[in-house]
Each structure stands twice: as structure tokens, then as C-alpha cells.
């Protein structure tokens, strides 16, 4: 959201303080890292709408970003008391349990979030990740924490930034391509819905981008399939792309999965195709093992 958008929302709220525009404004400020301003907007909104679950959810997210996980938990807890099916509150509490290592409770809340909002950003991937972690004996045996998990870490529970929890999940995902170059960065396995199953991917600045890229690739998968079919080219096999600084290779190890390889552009596409074959073999073995 641009500065202009925020100015417009601020003006709307000033003109009509009873407007629900405080919700998108607070969220926009939170996303920009203006947490003090976001908290102020959220609290002002809550004074007018104390029974609005969305307002408690907004404040919880701001508090979570600020590292105040105990209060964030309390706000999400209130949101759920007001609206037992609130997707944002289930998602937030689910991530807090995830961070705390209480995977069964995390899964329960994340599944509720997904049921309430099947399109919620990052939730489907998180559910898959927690299920995967629960299927791994070492993680499944993690002792549950007490009912309130908030004090365990000072990490923001936002979907795209779950810090230490993400790091432990990365170990599970990396196992898919164990022993292959780029097992944790540069190889990505996803399902046909764009949910990451294994591997990982970072942007050039080091930011993890696996989940967002996976979501876009599901569309590429469908478009490639449709283009090949409608142009009578038969079944599609791969999509290769060259960018200014990287080469990408996309193929389907199975009918229901997709594999992406990303290497810097010193690695020719032909070599990427060979690496993709090895990675596809590993992915198929792993998928068969999971099934």
C-alpha cells in the first residue's frame, strides 16, 4: 500500500472516526513496520468496537510483530471468544503454538484457519508443514508446552516470518533433496495447488521466497499444461526461463507435483535439465515414501 493510499485511509478515518477503515489502515501501518502508529489505530478502533473480532485480530498482529506474544495471544483468544471461526485468530494462535513446539495444537488451529478461509495466505503451506513435522518421529514426540505458548520466543507470528519455527521446518523440507546441490536453496518441490512440499528458495538478498514462488508456479503449471494441450503439442515436459541473473527450470516429477530449479545464469539450461532429472528422481522417491 502506497503512502498515498495510507493518506487516503487516514483522511477517511479522520472524517468519520466510527468508520471501519481503521482495520485496513492499521494493517497497512503494521506491514510498513510502523508498529506504534498501527497499535494506536487498533486501540482507537477497539474502543469503538470492543466486540469486533477483526479489531482484536489486528491488535494481536501488531503486538506479535512487536514481540509482545503474551498480549498477542490474549487478543487472539478474545477474538476467538467473539467469533469461534475467526481465521486470523486461529492462524495467529496456530503459529504461536507452532513456535512453542506444540504441533498438535498448532495443527488444530491452523486447520481451523484453513477451513474458515481456504485462501488465507501461507496457511495451507503451514498446515502441510506441521503435518509433515508431526509425521517425523523426532518432532512428533516434542513435548507439548503449557496452554499458553506465548513466552517461548520473541518472534513475530506472522505467516511469512516465523523465524525459528521456520528453521526447524526447513530441516524437514531439505530432506527431500538430501545430498543434492541446492537441497535447501534453489530446489523447490510443490504440489499442484502451489503448496511447498520440500526444498527452499531464497531471493538474491537472502529473503526466503519459497512459499510465494510456489504459489505463483501453480499458475504456471496450469497455463503450461493448457497451452500444450490446446496447441496440440502433447503433454508438457518442462518450462525453462533465463533471466538477467538466473536460469530457472520447471518440470513435473509426478502428475501432482512440480519441481523448480534455480541457478545463477552461469549454469546453462541444458545442465539444469540434467540436474532436474536427478532432483525429480529424488522427489519421486520421497513422495512414494510419504504416500
Amino acid at each position: 500500500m502506497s503512502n498515498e493510499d495510507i493518506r487516503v485511509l487516514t483522511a477517511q478515518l479522520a472524517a468519520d472516526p466510527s468508520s471501519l477503515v481503521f482495520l485496513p489502515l492499521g494493517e497497512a501501518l503494521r506491514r510498513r513496520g510502523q508498529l506504534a502508529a498501527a497499535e494506536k489505530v487498533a486501540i482507537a478502533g477497539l474502543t469503538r468496537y470492543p466486540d469486533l473480532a477483526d479489531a482484536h485480530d489486528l491488535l494481536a498482529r501488531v503486538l506479535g510483530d512487536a514481540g509482545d506474544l503474551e498480549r498477542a495471544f490474549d487478543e487472539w483468544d478474545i477474538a476467538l471468544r467473539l467469533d469461534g471461526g475467526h481465521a486470523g485468530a486461529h492462524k495467529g494462535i496456530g503459529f504461536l503454538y507452532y513456535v512453542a513446539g506444540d504441533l498438535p495444537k498448532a495443527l488444530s488451529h491452523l486447520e481451523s484457519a484453513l477451513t474458515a478461509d481456504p485462501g488465507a495466505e501461507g496457511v495451507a503451506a503451514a498446515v502441510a508443514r506441521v503435518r509433515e513435522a508431526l509425521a517425523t518421529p523426532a518432532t512428533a514426540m516434542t513435548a507439548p508446552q503449557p496452554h499458553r505458548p506465548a513466552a517461548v520466543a520473541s518472534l513475530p507470528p506472522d505467516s511469512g516470518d516465523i523465524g525459528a519455527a521456520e528453521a526447524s521446518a526447513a530441516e524437514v523440507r531439505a530432506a527431500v533433496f538430501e545430498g543434492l546441490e541446492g537441497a535447501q536453496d534453489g530446489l523447490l518441490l510443490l504440489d499442484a495447488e502451489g503448496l511447498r512440499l520440500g526444498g527452499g528458495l531464497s531471493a538474491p538478498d537472502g529473503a526466503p521466497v519459497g512459499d510465494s514462488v510456489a504459489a505463483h508456479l501453480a499458475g504456471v503449471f496450469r497455463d503450461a499444461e493448457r497451452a500444450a494441450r490446446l496447441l496440440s503439442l502433447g503433454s508438457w515436459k518442462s518450462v525453462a526461463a533465463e533471466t538477467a541473473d538466473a536460469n530457472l527450470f520447471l518440470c513435473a516429477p509426478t502428475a501432482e507435483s512440480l519441481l523448480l530449479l534455480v541457478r545463477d545464469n552461469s549454469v546453462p539450461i541444458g545442465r539444469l535439465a540434467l540436474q532436474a532429472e536427478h532432483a525429480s528422481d529424488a522427489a519421486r522417491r520421497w513422495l512414494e515414501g510419504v504416500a
Partner: protein
Amino acid sequence: MNTDIVAALESVTRVRGVRGAMLVSAEEGLVVAEASMEGLDGAAVAALTAGVVARLSRATEAAGRTPPAFVHLRADGGGLMAVPALTDLLVVAVTDPEVNVGLVRLELRRVAENVT
């Protein structure tokens, strides 16, 4: 200009295994010019190629990378290749399976550089 573009596209179709070549508006997926597209539905090629390239561009953007400078969709019975030219234009080739990919890419790039 259109005659020049068609002539340039014909240089792509002269590569063995190229079934047709065309210039496509990337945003709308519409045909701007085409050469030797016998047996191919030019409008469908344009729309579908633009769709794949647009999706892929969003994926590379999400990965923190620049938009693709070359895209190759390979299928059992042939392939599609695309190279962006000026803003909002794609040079596209439809090929047989056994085509010299490197040579087609060079020709597509040459056309892309000459589209004014």
C-alpha cells in the same frame, strides 16, 4: 514496418523445425504480426504464450529476479519459445520437438533487437 517484421519473423521460420513465428502483445495476448503459421491457430498461440510468460514473470518477480529474457515450454509434440522485445511485445516461435533450441533462441533475439 509490418512488412519488415514479417520478413524478420520469416528468418525464424527458416530454422529447421520451426512451424511458425509471430509477434505478440504481451499484455493483451494478441497477434501483432505472424509468419508461416500454417496449421496453427495464431490467436491461440498468442494468448497462451502471453499467459505462460506473464505467470512466469510473476514467479520470477516473487523470487526477487528480473523478468524472463527467454522462455521455452517443451512438450512431447513440440514447443513454444518466447523472447520479450520492446515493452509489451514478445517474439514467439512454435517448434517441432527436434529443433535446434539455441539457434531458434538466437533468431528470436535478433528479431527482438530489431523490432522498433
